[in-house]
């Protein structure tokens, strides 16, 4: 049969018969023979008590030192051979030590034994309820026979437990770190489950727990439940199972289980333990079809893996339960459950890493998408900026062109039109026609002048005007006195303002040439920053002047000049007395 004792330790003898005196706290005493293994919790569930097991050890060869290997005993024991106390594990009745956590091996010196006769083995034990108290059949044999078995059992139990604790701790730490970086519930649930798992599994091999009994028992039982629930939530998170009721339900179940587990242990009422088990069942039943559907129908990779793991786990657990039930918990028993736990932790770790890298990739893609979107926007912005810029430049160019066109139209155009009418008349003499043509040419030159880059400054505008009109002044016998002060650079005027000033000056000088009959003209220009950045230009002649009548004023284009001055935010004033000449004063203001 597959569940038979392995043949390796056939030499050592298992002592199965004992006469037990079982004492319960309330004074009830039971004295009877029984077969080991004896499980206290099976016989007296939920009760503390004491026991005294008396066993007979077969005779051993004379002078041979023997040994005893106790696979399991609890919770505090004292071992006597032939009345001599050979070992104590814990102090009877002191709950701070639990001997049931590890197997025990004891050497029995020959001096203690009865030569050639049987010896008496007495095991005194104190038990706490639900603490796996009792006695498994000890093995009697030589050191060579018993010690290797002990080592094997110990190593197996201890080392596997350590492996589980270590792996849970590592993967749990990784999950916690990842959860800190990225609040994904997958990581969070695993980290929490791992923490409680580590707590629980550490207790399995700890003989002297930190917490007092029965609190420790309750806490550890609760820890196991929390661990399991967290792992269930971990799986659900891996499957992206999200429902609004999931969290409230989880915490409700958790609450019930924790309370129930603690109550069960602390108050020694195993009934409560059953309630706990029952509460898990409906949840499992509800979720199972969902997971199966995911795995089978939708072929969801994670679901398939989890289902597979679940099946293996189920098989392992069932097998372990059967083994324990049927053949008892004996030495050399290889439990599959811890191995499953290791497998599970490994797979969980791999899935956690997977999920994290998946998230990283998603994030990177998102950033790349964002990047490209930003670049697109930037390009659009630049394009629209360029458009606006082009539009502004275009508008400025148009405005300038319009100004120039108007200038030419008003200047040369007017002259030519006037000239044409004179020519068509046939009445004007050639000299005068020539004058008009010269005037037209001057206008043209001035229009071209205004487009020169050097004309972006008032000094040059005035100077060039003088230079152009000087010949005509000389021809008319007019002596010009020219006084120009220092102007700031840049002059603070718009090109439109400069053009208007030029026109006004032209008009004023034309008046002097044509109407003043003067012999002298003074042109004076200065700039005063204190008077509001004011340019003041005066044209003063010693001619005949004019009467203060509206007709003469209009005829001399003074109204036009005044309008031009006002258009640039300046003022024009004309002073005259008969035979006292004319003084035209123009004020214009700069903007800095």
């Amino acid at each position: 049969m597959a569940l038979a004792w392995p043949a390796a330790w056939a030499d050592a003898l298992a002592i199965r018969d004992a006469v037990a005196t079982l004492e319960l706290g309330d004074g009830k005493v039971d004295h009877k023979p029984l077969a080991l293994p004896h499980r206290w919790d099976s016989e007296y569930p939920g009760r503390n008590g004491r026991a005294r097991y008396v066993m007979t050890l077969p005779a051993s060869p004379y002078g041979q030192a023997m040994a005893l290997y106790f696979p399991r005993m609890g919770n505090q024991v004292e071992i006597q051979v032939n009345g001599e106390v050979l070992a104590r594990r814990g102090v009877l009745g002191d709950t701070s030590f639990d001997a049931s956590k590890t197997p025990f091996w004891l050497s029995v010196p020959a001096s203690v034994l009865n030569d050639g006769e049987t010896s008496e083995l007495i095991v005194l034990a104190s038990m706490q309820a639900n603490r796996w108290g009792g006695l498994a059949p000890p093995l009697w044999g030589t050191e060579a026979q018993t010690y290797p078995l002990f080592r094997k059992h110990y190593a197996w139990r201890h080392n596997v437990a350590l492996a589980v604790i270590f792996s849970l701790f590592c993967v749990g730490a990784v999950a916690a770190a990842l959860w800190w970086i990225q609040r994904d519930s997958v990581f969070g649930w695993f980290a929490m489950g791992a923490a409680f798992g580590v707590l629980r599994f550490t207790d399995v091999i700890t003989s002297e727990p930190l917490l007092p009994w029965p609190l420790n028992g309750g806490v550890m039982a609760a820890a196991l439940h929390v661990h399991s629930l967290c792992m269930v939530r971990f799986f659900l998170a891996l499957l992206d199972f999200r429902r609004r009721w999931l969290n409230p339900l989880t915490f409700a179940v958790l609450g019930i289980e924790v309370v129930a587990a603690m109550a069960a242990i602390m108050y020694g009422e195993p009934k409560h333990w059953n309630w706990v088990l029952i509460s898990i069942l409906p949840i499992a039943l509800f979720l199972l079809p969902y997971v199966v559907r995911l795995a089978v129908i939708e072929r969801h990779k994670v679901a398939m893996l989890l289902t597979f793991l679940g099946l293996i786990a189920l098989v392992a657990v069932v097998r372990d339960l059967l083994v324990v039930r049927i053949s008892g918990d004996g030495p050399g028993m290889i439990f599959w459950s811890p191995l499953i736990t290791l497998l599970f932790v490994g797979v969980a770790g791999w899935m956690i890493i997977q999920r994290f890298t998946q998230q990283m990739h998603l994030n990177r893609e998102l950033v790349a998408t964002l990047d490209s979107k930003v670049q697109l926007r930037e390009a659009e912005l630049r394009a629209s900026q360029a458009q606006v810029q082009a539009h502004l430049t275009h508008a400025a160019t148009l405005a300038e062109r319009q100004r120039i066109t108007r200038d030419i139209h008003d200047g040369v155009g007017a002259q030519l039109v006037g000239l044409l009418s004179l020519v068509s008349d046939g009445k004007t003499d050639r000299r005068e026609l020539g004058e008009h043509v010269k005037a037209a040419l001057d206008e043209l030159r001035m229009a071209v002048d205004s487009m020169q880059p050097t004309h972006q400054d008032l000094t040059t505008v005035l100077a060039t005007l003088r230079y152009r009109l000087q010949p005509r002044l000389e021809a008319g016998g007019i002596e010009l006195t020219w006084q120009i002060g220092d102007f700031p650079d840049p002059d603070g005027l718009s090109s439109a303002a400069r053009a208007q000033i030029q026109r006004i000056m032209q008009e004023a000088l034309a008046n002097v040439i044509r109407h003043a009959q003067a012999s002298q003209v003074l042109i004076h220009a200065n700039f005063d920053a204190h008077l509001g950045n004011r340019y003041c230009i005066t044209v003063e002649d010693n001619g005949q002047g004019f009467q203060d009548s509206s007709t003469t004023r209009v005829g001399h284009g003074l109204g036009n000049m005044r309008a031009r001055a006002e258009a640039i935010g300046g003022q024009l004033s004309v002073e005259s007395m008969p035979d006292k000449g004319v003084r035209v004063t123009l004020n214009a203001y700069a903007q800095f």
Partner: protein
Amino acid sequence: MKIPSPPSISVCIVEDELETLQRLEQALKATSGLKVLCCAMSCRMAIDFLRSHVVDVLLVDLGLPDGSGLDVIRFCRSASPVTEVMVITMFGDEANMIEAFEAGARGYLLKDGTVNDLAHHVKNLYDGGSPMTPAIARQMLNRFAQPTRQSPKTHSAIPVPTANALLSERERDILSKLAKGYTYNEVAKLLGVSLSAIQFHVKNLYSKLAVNSKTEAIFEARQLGLL
């Protein structure tokens, strides 16, 4: 073999517009003391003539059919440094004229001047006086203003050699007065010097402009490692 020039002032006119050319020729021929030796209508014709002849005054239109008048100016300056070069221009647009001055021209002539004007100007130029508009004076001030200039090719500030580049105090004064519109006479009176002194300075200024531009060209060539 080069033919020596006759006693009166010899002139060569380079102008592609036939009417203008004829008008100029008429105006100059009618004046005593001026002799028109050649009328060229293209760069090629002008340069061919100048290879074998020396004239006292060269009148060049900037817009020629087969090239720029600047080439003719440069050729003339190098082939015959004694020749005075004048640019013929319609409106006296300063941008082109400054370039012409940098190439070596000493003055300009307006196409639309009367007969007297033309002859007067040519004689004047030969005598050493060069007219200067306020705008040109202004441009000159700008050109000579910075002690360092930014090389347009390498975009680094290059110190222009001091000898011919900077203006003397007197020259700067003259230019700024001319830029304000004062005539030569008025400038002379304001600065307390003679008219001929002003004319002399102005002539120097034109030379400086040409030299300056030449020096700058050399400097730039050095910068670029061409020399």
